[in-house]
């Protein structure tokens, strides 16, 4: 598809470097799917949906900085929704998120509640000022918050909050956040990997499964069309948590 034109309806600041953009187009995405956002004259980058008509973006580089310079009434180009999103399974689910990675989980949780599924959430942030969507997660059901500095909730990484739960109780666990955090969770909960769905990120160029820039070792799985949501047991033997490739294809650290 060619990019479709979308007018930004509203922009809301969620945290110092996080903003939500309301789009005027109904793309009917599933939680976990993404859209390629074209900031004209700058670049095109993949973004997760935080609701059917919003994307929530953390400013991390030139493209997202350029997007932050756009306000209500500005226009962007959109291709998508693309990829495989989360699939709801069972009647009692746990959402585990970190930072801006909580955005697609809030969307998923709301969809799950609408389907009569019990939702519990564990979300972690660096500090109190970085917390986003607290009201949305509170409205879903049980909520545990962690902060790295202990300013709110349990002090420490998201994994610290796992102690509060018996994971065997949940029919499915949904995970999204920085790769180091997701890897930390997956490696601590290996016996549950068959029921953990993780939404991951890789450098995308084409988003149509042909350029190869997002392929995961060692199987060559194309994240842009076969993901970005994968069962965790499929990630355990992959490059995930170990390294990721950049725009030029070289391997680098999987920080963030």
């Amino acid at each position, binding site marked *: *598809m*060619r*990019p479709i*034109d979308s007018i930004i309806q509203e922009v809301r600041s969620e945290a110092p470097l996080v903003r939500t953009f309301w789009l005027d187009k109904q793309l009917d995405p599933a939680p976990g799917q993404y859209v*390629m956002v*074209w900031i*004209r*004259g*700058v*670049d*095109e*980058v993949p973004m997760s949906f935080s609701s059917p008509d919003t994307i929530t973006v953390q400013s991390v580089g030139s*493209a997202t900085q350029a997007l932050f310079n756009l306000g209500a009434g500005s*226009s962007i*180009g959109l*291709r998508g929704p693309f990829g495989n999103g989360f699939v709801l399974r069972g009647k009692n689910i746990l959402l585990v998120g970190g930072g801006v990675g909580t955005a697609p989980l809030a969307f998923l949780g709301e969809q799950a509640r609408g389907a009569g599924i019990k939702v519990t959430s564990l979300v972690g942030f660096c500090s109190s000022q970085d917390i986003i969507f607290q009201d949305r997660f509170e409205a879903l059901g049980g909520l545990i918050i962690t902060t790295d500095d202990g300013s709110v909730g349990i002090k420490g990484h998201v994994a610290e909050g796992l102690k509060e739960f018996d994971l065997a109780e949940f029919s499915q666990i949904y995970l999204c956040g920085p790769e180091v955090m997701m890897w930390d969770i997956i490696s601590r909960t290996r016996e549950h990997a068959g029921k953990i769905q993780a939404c991951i990120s890789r450098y995308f*160029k*084409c*988003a*149509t*499964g*042909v*350029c*190869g*820039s997002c*392929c*995961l*070792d*060692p*199987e*060559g799985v*194309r994240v842009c069309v076969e993901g970005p949501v994968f069962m965790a047991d499929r990630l355990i033997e992959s490059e995930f948590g170990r390294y990721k*490739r*950049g*725009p*030029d*294809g*070289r391997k680098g650290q999987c920080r963030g």
Partner: protein
Amino acid sequence: MPSLTVHAGGLTLRNPVMLAAGILGTTGASLRRAALAGAGGVVTKSLGSVPRDGHPGPTIVQVDCGLLNAMGLPNPSYKKFQEEIDIARTGGVPVVASIFGSSAEEFAGIARGLDADAFELNLSCPHAEKYGSELGRYPDLVEAVTGAVKAAANAPVWVKLTPNTADIVELGQAAQRGGADAVVAINTLKAMAIDIETGYPILGNRFGGLSGPAIKPVAVRSVYDLALRLDIPVIGVGGVTSWEDAVEMIMAGACAVQVGTALQKGYGIFEEISLGLARYLERKSMTLEDIRGMAGRHY
């Protein structure tokens, strides 16, 4: 089932359906996956002497009957790619390294530094300054680059030609004079798409290359003319999406075909085309040699 084994430009392929350059060729794992899915051979993403990020996005636009791209030769440099080639080789089919440079010396240096089953010289990328078709549209440069790589490489050398020229046969003849073991035709057609809401060119690079079904007739004509006029084999690429397309390309004179844009349908495309080709040959009681260049024998 009839044999699909072909000898193409110094390589023996178990079937004539290869993965084209630039498609799923950034990692050894994805190349290996293409091989395991049934490709007769695979070609890497084009490798240069230094790492490149490529052009800003959008790098791709889906248009009617094709795909427009301006990736901009992103690659980790050939120095970082030997390990990927070694992984790709575990797929059990020949691995062709696509390479690019801005001079004969640069091409030769890369070929000397890589161990691959063959080299495909990218003298045809239409959207990277100083590279690709900026050299490849000049016959004397095509000959010089080919000659330099032939002298440096210990593997067959294929030359991928640009259709963005008045006479592609002239370029093919230059490659042949330089000692090429085969020519590969065609690379993408220089093209552009504009966002009518704003007037912005959609591709980050403004213009790029068109691939897919839209360019197949151009590729068939190019392969036909090259096969009639050259002594070296021609590998056909451009819009091959089905076994019927492969048959048409072989009848035009191709000894093998490469598949790129059609990988949008998934890795199953290799088996789909090979199987269709084998069934066709069986139904016609013919071999690949029988149909190769058939169109040229009707006049």
